[in-house]
């Protein structure tokens, strides 16, 4: 990796930062300081814009680099991820997007509290939303640190630390200055860049094989060192039963978790109507589906053109498969095209990280300010007793979330935190999805049921991870020298998700409180017709 190539990469990184900051300052000039503006960008985005923004929010560097890397290393098993991440959107489209748009305002708690006693429910779902966001954020920050260090060729700890701090500072600036409007435009720009980059690479890969997918798969199988096994499941999740069950657990968390991710839910409030929310999900399903199909081609392409061993040598987790592939497709390290393409892909990955962390930061600051702060400080009257407006609190909360994420990111940067993404999805599926679905579809659902279902999913999910081999008792664990791992799976989804649903049901049937029929009627009519929607 030559100096010129590093200069070019840094130049493109600076361009990404400049453009995103430009968007932020443009967006903040038009701000009005209302919650509508800060959390929902004024609610006037078009379905297409919001569809791109959703795709930009969802397609993380983990999916661009991580999934194609997994495919390059393990073949078919990497593809299982791509399928799960896409199918999850049907849950969002069918059960969540329109109804949430119709009866919510800014957060998940708004939908649930429409029907019940507000305070305990708002606090519970605020806590679980912040938990999901922080888990996801830390995973992204640590990933960003190691990724940028890898892409810039420096393995030093300092480069990583400064990347974590820099990414954290940028996301705080985007969110607290630009709010939802800046975040949305950054996500749209990133989605276009990412899809453009992936499309270019896919076309180049297919051109190498004359458009013959069979030839691509054949040479991938050949050069992987696994032969035909490479094209069938089992290389990564075969073997022991706990591994297999673990994958089923992860699959369940992926497909049910998406609909409970706070930063995804908050995106539906940026369009004017439920129908616009539906159309934006359709856009995003199209974009995300095409993107994952391209990711699969890139993963097999990396195996075919580079060989699995070369990918593994560069990074044991496979995260550099796509950057290396771009170097190869451009003509190799000593050509002009190779380093240029490499630098472009690195910049796209960087933009991806920035857009995703900004979306999560915004969602968690909304949960802190709109749910937690409002519940703890309010005794009647407008938001915030202490003279601060709710948006002011949200801006400060964004700084707080940013500082916390930077701190945790720095602490965790030497650790293997790949499990955190799966965990964030599992918590979202176990704590957020049950309460959301019950509130939307179950007439008898009560306050106690809501509170129980949130904690009944959240607590087991966290507890099971603490007791799992990712925290102790295994060589790659957080605390390898200790051993209190009694739960054999790395992902708690398969246990915690049913527990969340069960707790919600149990809380409801045991509570003495009668469900309020009038409130249920209002919620149901509003959710299906949009009457009285914001």
């Amino acid at each position, binding site marked *: 990796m030559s100096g010129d190539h590093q200069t070019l990469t840094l130049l493109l990184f600076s361009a990404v930062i400049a453009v995103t900051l430009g968007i932020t300052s443009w967006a903040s000039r038009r701000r009005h300081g209302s919650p509508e503006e800060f959390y929902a960008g*004024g609610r*006037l*985005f*078009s379905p*297409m*814009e919001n569809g791109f923004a959703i795709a930009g929010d969802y397609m993380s560097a983990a999916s661009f680099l991580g999934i194609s890397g997994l495919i390059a290393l393990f073949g078919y098993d990497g*593809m299982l991820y791509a*399928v*799960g991440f896409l*199918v999850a*959107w*049907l849950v969002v489209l*069918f*059960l969540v997007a*329109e109804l949430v748009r119709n009866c919510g*305002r800014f957060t998940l708690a*708004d939908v649930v509290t429409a029907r019940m006693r*507000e305070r305990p429910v708002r606090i519970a779902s605020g806590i679980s939303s912040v938990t999901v966001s922080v888990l996801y954020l830390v995973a992204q920050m640590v990933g960003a640190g190691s990724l940028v260090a890898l892409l810039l060729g420096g393995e030093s700890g300092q480069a990583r630390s400064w990347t974590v701090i820099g990414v954290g500072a940028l996301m705080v600036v985007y969110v607290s200055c630009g709010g939802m409007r800046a975040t949305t435009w950054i996500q749209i720009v990133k989605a276009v860049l990412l899809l453009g980059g992936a499309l270019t690479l896919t076309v180049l890969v297919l051109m190498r094989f004359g458009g013959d997918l*069979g030839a691509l*798969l*054949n040479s991938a*199988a050949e050069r992987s060192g696994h032969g*035909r096994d490479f*094209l*069938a*499941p089992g290389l990564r*999740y*075969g073997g022991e039963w706990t591994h297999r*069950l673990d*994958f*089923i657990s992860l*699959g*369940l968390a992926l*497909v049910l978790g998406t609909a409970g991710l706070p930063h995804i839910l908050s995106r539906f409030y940026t369009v*004017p*109507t*439920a*129908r*616009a929310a539906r159309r934006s999900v*359709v856009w995003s399903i199209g974009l995300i*589906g095409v993107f994952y199909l391209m990711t699969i081609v890139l993963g097999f392409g990396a195996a075919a053109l580079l060989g699995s061993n070369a990918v593994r040598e560069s990074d044991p987790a496979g995260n550099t498969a796509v950057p290396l592939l771009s170097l190869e497709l451009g003509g190799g390290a000593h050509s002009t095209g190779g380093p240029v393409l490499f630098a472009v892909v690195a910049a796209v990955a960087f933009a991806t990280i920035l857009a995703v962390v900004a979306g999560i930061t915004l969602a968690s600051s909304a949960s802190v300010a*709109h749910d937690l702060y409002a519940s703890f400080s309010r005794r*009647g*009257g407008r*938001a*915030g007793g202490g003279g601060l407006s*709710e948006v002011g609190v949200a801006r400060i909360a964004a700084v707080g979330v940013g500082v916390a994420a930077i701190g945790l990111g720095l602490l965790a940067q030497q650790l293997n935190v790949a499990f955190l993404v799966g965990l964030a999805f599992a918590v979202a599926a176990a704590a957020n999805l049950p309460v959301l679905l019950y509130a939307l579809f179950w007439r008898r659902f009560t306050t106690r049921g809501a509170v129980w279902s949130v904690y009944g999913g959240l607590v087991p999910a966290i507890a099971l991870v603490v007791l799992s081999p990712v925290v102790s008792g295994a060589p790659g664990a957080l605390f390898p020298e200790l051993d209190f791992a009694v739960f054999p799976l790395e992902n708690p989804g398969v246990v915690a998700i049913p527990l969340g649903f069960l707790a919600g049901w149990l809380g409801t049937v045991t509570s003495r409180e009668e469900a309020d029929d*009038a409130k249920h*009627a*209002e919620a*149901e*009519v*509003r959710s*299906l*017709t*949009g*009457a*009285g*929607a*914001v």
Partner: protein
Amino acid sequence: MIFCVCPSLGMRTEDPWYDALASGWGDQDAPPAAPHSADRRGKSGELRDAHAAVYLTVQRSAAFQQVRRRYRRFVLPATAAFLVWYLAYVVTATVAPDLMARPVVGVFNVAMAAGLAQFASTFLLTWAYVRHARLRRDKLALELRWETQDMARVRTAGGGRSAAQASHDAQASAASSAGPAVSRDGGSRNSPRAGARTNAPAARTAWEGTP
């Protein structure tokens, strides 16, 4: 709230759903941090009862039941189907990799075919859902929305009236609306009812001229 985010990309103003925005949440709910009941409760129980009566009446109306039935009849089986299909795929991939490794055509095996079929079924179900919603639900739901908001407005206008009377009005209104709205689905989708259309005149004019 009346400004456009991106004139260049163009809001679709011919879409009737965009009118809906202007029928504010603001006129019936508390300020941002005190959503729903908190404010209303303080003011008058009567008003709240009338408000509840409106929604209860709409919920019981034939038109609403129709919308809900159509929504659930599509969504619940479809959700069950794709979840089962996805779980079957994941479980087979992890439990029976040998089955998945069987070749189909050339280098393509069962696993590849099943994976691509997951993509295809996702796209297909998305298309089917959108089509179903557009043809079978949207119109009815939009009409119900105007009607409900109209009833709610009558309630606020007649502030001092008793809840019972408001409820009576609401019932009458819902009854009158249920008929045509339901029959429309039977095929005659002409003559949009004047009642439903004139509901948000202020809203509509506010939108005219926005790009």
